[in-house]
């Protein structure tokens, strides 16, 4: 079979964002999917703040596996939630970050402030250790 490459282009995605919410033993797990930018960051902020205020959530795990894009608006909301939870004695943890998203997060210095985990289980395990200590 003779493959003739003529003109090729990566599939493109526009501004798409959704999330799945899960609450387990006072921990809010959010599985984010899509682009985290000035259009969508507010939705993430509201979702987290809502659970902090209504349910007294203090640990938030952000599963970033399906995040396709992040910029400083998205990073700012994550840092903002980290600060808010810190003042309440809680924390933000991040899991399943794809490599190209990690690069942007690294440039922002976020991994020096917030802990990153390979998956949700690791993030939650660390939670219990933290409480046990």
């Amino acid at each position: 079979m003779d493959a003739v490459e003529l003109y090729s282009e990566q599939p493109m995605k526009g501004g798409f964002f959704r999330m799945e919410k899960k609450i387990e033993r006072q921990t809010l797990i959010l599985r984010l999917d899509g682009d985290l930018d000035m259009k969508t960051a507010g939705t993430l902020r509201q979702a987290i703040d809502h659970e902090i205020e209504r349910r007294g959530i203090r640990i938030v795990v952000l599963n970033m596996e399906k995040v396709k894009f992040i910029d400083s608006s998205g990073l700012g909301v994550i840092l903002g939630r980290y600060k808010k939870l810190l003042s309440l004695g809680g924390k933000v943890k991040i899991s399943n970050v794809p490599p190209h998203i990690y690069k942007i997060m690294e440039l922002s210095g976020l991994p020096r402030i917030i802990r990153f985990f390979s998956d949700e289980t690791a993030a939650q395990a660390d939670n219990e250790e933290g409480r046990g200590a």
Partner: protein
Amino acid sequence: MKVNQLVLTFSSVAENVGIARMLVASVGAQLDLPLNDIEELKVTVSEAVSNAIIHGYRGESGRLVLLELEINKETLKITVSDEGCGIPDVEQAMQPAFSTDPERMGLGFVFMQSFMDELEVDSTVNQGTTVTMVKYLDRSTASPSH
């Protein structure tokens, strides 16, 4: 020599940030840039357009933002302009972590500077801001798309 030029003028609404990113991504794909470079161009445009809407127009919709992509033989020039409030002290604004909005990180210009080879900010208070950025294209060593 100008090889190709695309100018997108659009309303200052948040929905359009994703469209602006997609435009630069498809131009990057047309140039056969590596995926990583395309990701960086998307962040660059996202930051500059977000600044125009959030800071330049202070969130006011119905104003216009301009995104100009000029493909030359050896460069991709990206210009983002608004006719918004302008920046009183550009040098200060470009400092890492500086932001006039306490909720924001002050990283927009840091990202633009990291991802582009040239960055110039031209701003006049009450008249608007133009950010001009250049990326050098090393097309001789560009690998075939796949």
